[in-house]
Every structure is written in C-alpha cells, then in structure tokens.
C-alpha cells in the first residue's frame, strides 16, 4: 500500500492498516448509492497534479478524523475544501504541510506526494517541506514585530537574507535585497499601497484584513509552490473578505492554492475545483467547482450545497 508515518509512533500501527483497509471496503461495498469513489477520482485535470493524496487516514488518539482520502490537487489553480464543521477539512489541510506533527495525539497513515515525492517518508526535512508548502491561518497571526520584519522573517531564518553586524562583517548585508523582497511580497499581497509608508510600524497595529494580507505576504516571502489557507477570511469583514478573495484568484496564476472554507458562495466564486467533505471525515466528491455546485454526482453533496443539510 502506501508509505506509513505515525506522528506519535503508535505501536498499533499494523492494526490501523487493517482497520483502514476495512473501512475502504465498507465504503465501497456498503454504499449502494451512485457515489462510489471511482466516479470522481477519474476526474481529469487541466494541469499536472501538484499534490497527490492516497488513502490518507488521520487519528486523534483513537478517534478517526479522516478516512481514506484520495485526491490529486492540480497545479496553479484554486482548490476549495468545503464541508460542515468537524468534517476534517482543516485536519486534511494541515496534513499537506505536516503541521499535524505538532499535535501530540495526532497520527497520520497514508501517503501524500508533493510532485511525486512522499512527504511522510523517514528523514523528511520539515523545513524544506514547509518552505515549499506555505500556510495561512484562520485568524491573522502576524508576529509582534515590524511589518518589514514580518516579511523578512522566513528568508532570514533560511539564511537568504542577512542584516546586522555579522552580515556586515562578512560583507554580506542584504538590506537592499530585503527592501526589494518586502516590496514585491507586499505588492503581491495587495498591501503595498496601504503600508508602504510605515514599514517599521508594529504589525499588530494593522486592521484584521491588513494583518491577514500581511500573513499572506509573509508566506509568499519564502517563495512557496503551494499555499494552504485555512478559512482565511472567516475572521474578516465583507470588504476585507472581498480583497482576500481577489488576491487568492490572482495568486493561483503562479501558485497552487488550497483553501478551506465553510462559505459555499466563496468556494463557488474563487475556486477552480471543489472537494466536499462530509461528517465522519470522508471525502464525498471532488470535481470542477461548476459541476459540484450545479450538478453534483452525489445526492448528499447536492443536499449540502443547496443547504438542505449540513
């Protein structure tokens, strides 16, 4: 089957494999309705798959949060993950850059490949993974530093930008490069106009929407390939939300964006394809966004997107 990695080194690993196998059989055999897995996994992408997820299970302690997720996420597009709360869509998102490793009780079983390279392999360099797969969180979380330092934080930690005494001693001061980087990222995040005259102010003084765009800019500064967004606009007012939505569509020209949202209109507006998770941590349908919202295969998905259930 797939490569296995348990964040909590659970001894019951083999049991778990059995259980997940059982679960897959149950889903396929037990569900007599039209939505068997094969129907939507055959879905043809416009681009290359950037991330391919194969039979992913996630447990919190003994509780299964995700079961048997298999999907390919295409390059340079927006993929929306929707579903009712508690359906595991955020958990799924956090599996894609292994942020779940930080939760002690979480264990992951299955395979996620980034451009064909397994991210749950032994000896994986988490730093490189998270540089390539960036993340923006539900509530804006800028560091209590200046706007400039927020942007250059990542590159500094990776040794790409160095200022200060040591850098000057080594003749390596990249102050100019920092300026350029800050400007590029803020422009990309559509924040430059608003903050260009106060880059040395504390980021906590910005409004919520500005903070969230700063977090996106901070993420862009390490030059990721994939950007994961966990309900990035849920804490914001409608105007700030609209700005973030525009930004997401723009980013998709260069980046692969995966966005979790509980707002179906938002998913319909911004995404190219949509995955619907329903209660119990299963992926029910994954297809072009238009198809999901206009003519879903599954009755349950139709009920959910039309608001009959959820």
């Amino acid at each position, binding site marked *: 089957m797939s490569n296995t990695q348990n964040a909590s080194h659970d001894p019951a690993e083999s049991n778990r494999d059995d259980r997940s196998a059982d679960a897959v059989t149950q889903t396929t055999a037990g569900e007599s309705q039209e939505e068997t897995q094969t129907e939507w996994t055959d879905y043809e992408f416009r681009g290359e798959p950037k991330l391919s997820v194969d039979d992913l299970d996630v447990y919190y302690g003994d509780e299964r949060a995700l079961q048997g997720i298999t999907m390919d996420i295409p390059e340079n597009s927006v993929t929306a993950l929707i579903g009712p709360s508690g359906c595991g869509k955020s958990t799924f998102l956090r599996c894609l850059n292994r942020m779940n490793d930080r939760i002690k009780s979480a264990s992951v079983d299955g395979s996620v490949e*980034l451009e064909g*390279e*397994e*991210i749950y*392999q032994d*000896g*994986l*360099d988490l*730093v*490189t*993974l998270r*540089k*390539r797969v960036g993340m923006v969180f539900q509530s804006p979380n800028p560091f209590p530093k200046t706007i400039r330092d927020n942007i250059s934080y990542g*590159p500094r*930690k*990776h*040794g*790409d930008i160095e200022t200060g*005494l*040591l850098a000057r*001693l*080594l003749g*390596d001061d990249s102050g100019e*490069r920092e300026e350029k*980087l800050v400007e*590029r990222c803020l*422009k*990309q995040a559509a924040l430059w106009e608003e903050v260009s005259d106060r880059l040395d102010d504390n980021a906590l003084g910005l409004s919520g929407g500005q903070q969230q765009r700063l977090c996106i800019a901070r993420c862009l500064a*390490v*030059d*990721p*390939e994939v950007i994961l967004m966990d309900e990035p606009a849920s804490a914001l007012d409608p105007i700030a939300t609209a700005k973030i939505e525009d930004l997401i569509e723009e980013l998709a*020209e*260069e980046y692969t964006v995966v966005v979790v949202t509980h707002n179906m209109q938002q998913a319909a507006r911004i995404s190219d394809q949509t995955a619907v998770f329903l209660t119990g941590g299963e992926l029910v349908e994954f297809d072009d966004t238009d198809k999901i919202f206009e003519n879903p295969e599954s009755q349950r998905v139709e009920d959910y997107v039309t608001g009959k259930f959820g």
Partner: protein
Amino acid sequence: MSERTLRNQSRDPLAVEYSAALAGLSVVPIATFFAAFVVGGLTLAGQRSLGSTILGIEIETVLTALLFVAGGCLLAISVGSRYGVIETTPDRSAGLGVASGFGFVAFSGIGLAMSQTFGLGRLVWAPLALIGGLTVAGAIVFAREDLGVTVPAGLFSVAIGSLVLFDGLTPAWAWSPAGFGVTFNGTVLIPLLTIVAGLVTAWAAANAFEGFGAAGRQAGAFFLIGANATLILLVLLLLIAFIVKNGFWYAVDGIEIGPGLNFHWPFVMDGYDVVLNQKGIYPAIIGTFWLVVGALVMAVPIGVGAAVFLTEYAEEGRFTSVIDIATNGLWSTPSVVFGLFGYAFLVPRLGNNTSLLAGMIVLGFMLLPLVLITSREAIKSVPDEYRDASAALGVSKWETIKDVTIPSAMPGIVTGIIIGIGRIAGETAPILIVTADNPQRSSAPAIMGSFELTTSPPFIVNEALLSGSSALPYQLYGAITTGVVGDDPGYGWATAFVLLLVVLSFYVIGITTRIYFRKKLQA
C-alpha cells in the same frame, strides 16, 4: 508579475540524506561526554582518586583519552566536511555568539597562562590575550559554520588533553590566584576541565549530527537544554539519595516489633534525654504536627474565604489589586521577616516568651498567601457555565457557591493546601525566633491534656500552647548549632531524613492528587 529570485532554492529535495560517517563520528563525542561526566564526577566527589584505576586503566589516562577521542572525532568531521567527503549543510558562519564564546575561552586561557604560569605583567598579558581572543573570534566569524563549530571545540578538547598528557597539568599542580583565598588543585581541575570540554565537544557534535545549519543549531541548543534538565533531575535524586543513605539506618536503628501490639521505634518515638540515653525526635515531630494543625486552622478558612470573595463577589478594581499586591507581597516576604514580626507582635502578647501558639499564628500567616493564591486559581478555573446553569435555575449566588463552585474547585484547593503544608512544615527561621527554646527536648508538648478552664479571662488556658516547643527543622538547626552533629553526625542525617520524608510526602501527595484530577478532567 514578479521576478522570483528565490525560486531555484525551493526545489530542494524534501528528504535529508544521513551520512553514516557523520552520524558515527558525531555520536562518539556525545558518548565520551557521558563517560567523562560519570568518571569525572566520581573523581570530583572524592569517590575515586585520579591515580586509581577503572577497568585496569588509571583514571587520569581515561580522562585524557576521552578528551583526545572526542576532539579527534570533531576534527575528523571538520576535515571531512571541508573537503566534501562528508555531506553537510552548513551556513556561511557559525555566528557572533559562538565566536565570542570561543574567543572568550581563548582570551582567558592565554591570559591565565601568561600571567600565572609565566608571571608576565598586566601590560604584557592583557594585549596578548586580547589579540589571541580576537583572532579566534575573527577566524570563527569568517570561517564556514562547520569549521567554526567543530575546529575550536575539537582543539579545545585536544589542548586540555595535551596539557594533561605532557604534564602541563598534573594532579599535584596547584594555583592560588592573588586576591582570593582559594587554591585550585590539579586533582579538581583535571576532572572539571574534562567535563567542561566534554560538554563543549558534545554540543558541537550534536550540531554536526544534524549537518549544521538551522537543524544543527537546534540540535545543539536542545542538547544543552536537555542536559540542563537532566542535571536538575540528577541533583534532586542525589540530594534525596544522599540523605536517605546517611540517615536511614540511624533513623530505623533499634526498632522493636511485638510481642502483640508492642511497637517501639526509638528515633521517632523517644525524646532526647542524656540520662536515659535516648536520642529521639518525638518532641520535634509532635511540635511540627501541632504547628501545621494550628497554621491550617488559621490560614485555610481565611485563605479560602478571601479567595471566594475575590473571585465571586469582588469586582476587578482598585480593591482587588490592593489585595493582589498584599497577597503576592506576603508570598515573597522572607521567612525571617515573619519571624521578626512574630517576635515584635505576638510574643509580648502571648505570655512574653516563645510559644507554640505564636509559631502557629506566624506559620498561618505564611501559609495564607499560598492558600489564597491556589484557591483563587482553582475557583477561577471553574467554568462559568456551571454558575450560569445554577443561577438560571433560580438558585441564589451563595447557594451556587456552596453547592457548585466550591465543590468543583475542591481538588485544586486541597492540592494547594497540601503543597502549602509541605512548605511550612520545613520552615525554620520563624520557628527559631518565636517558638523554639531548647532544641533537644526530652518530652513533647501535651496539647490535648493541657486545656484548663479558669474563672478569669481568657477562661480557657493551655499551658502547652503557651510554652516553647521543638519542631523538626528546628531540631536539625539545633543539632548543628549546639554541636550535637559534630559528635554524632548520624543524628543530624536521621533528623534530616525524617524531615525530608515528612515534607516530600506532602509534595508527592499534592502533586499526585493534581495529576489524578487533571487526568480525570481530561478523560
């Protein structure tokens, strides 16, 4: 839209390749550090001398060998990494922190050698040492990180090893720095320097194990922080083990069991009586018992009552912040100051002599802030939903507090009280000033039998409460100051053992209760 200057580097492979050579070479210094710590530690503690042997090898030789092995491994890593034989991912420089650290070591080493060994004047050694230190620091700053970390650490280790090997530093060597009344002997310095060098090389090796860079620095830092935690654990265990080893047999000496219910434990059940040849601490145990009981009676109602008032009735404001300042102030007031206060305030009013009652009240004052702070935390952590649910049923606030809030907060309150008891049971200074008279007493205070009714105020008197008493910590202090320990060290150790047993039991019970209730809450 953008020039993506950094794009190339994001194609780094996801997996890190571990080189077996690097892993092997960097594990060795960590292992030698532990060996040096154990062997050097035993030598420092006087359990072994440098001349004695371990596995047939002289300890001095063992320590020297460890220094050379650890240093050699690091130097091998540096060469391998420099010429690409061993694959690593170092940064451009080890940084100013590492540079100034090793620079300082070089400065002190050169300075000490120049001034003490060669007797050069300040004007000569200071500039030379400064130049040496700056050269080392500069070399580290401008060298690549792998070299900047491993080479100085390796050289440091090898240099100390060479000093010992070529008799620059022998067990007989001694150095008395001017101005300090102290002599550093080779017998102490050799194991000490070996342990220090071992720590430095192990840090560098942990750094190398992860291939330097950010991951390497993390490994180095985590190694030091982990070593610190281990050291604290070790200190605690050694303290306890030491006291148990020295005091246990004396304390349990002469226990008689049977026939029937007859049980006699001389050390715990006898007084201290030269005539009867008894050396026991029964009066002190009983004294401590009554002191704790009295302090509890004083502090628990006041502390818990104030905690309830502050969390449930008082609104945050000037009043609560004044009380906060007072509580925290009381918490940090030195125990000897409590003693002075008791001496000035209580002693003159309670019969003008030291007394058990004064000790109870002073310890009660000391226990009060602890009980208040922990009870307040416990009551605060009762979820508001409980209070709302009760209030929504039309139950009055007081009934809610009585039936819902306090019972839910009980585990926290009780834990706080238990740990508080542990703390005051070991307090010495206030007892010394307000309660104690004769440290080695032959009889225990008979509190229960001393109550007498009188016709004049205060109508009820208790002679025992108003007389001095001993207590466990005071007994230990008295044993030291009256010279009992000098004649019979076992008596002191056994007293320390019983005191530690009493105090730590309260801590263990308190901490276990807390963990138990926390687990229960989570489940």
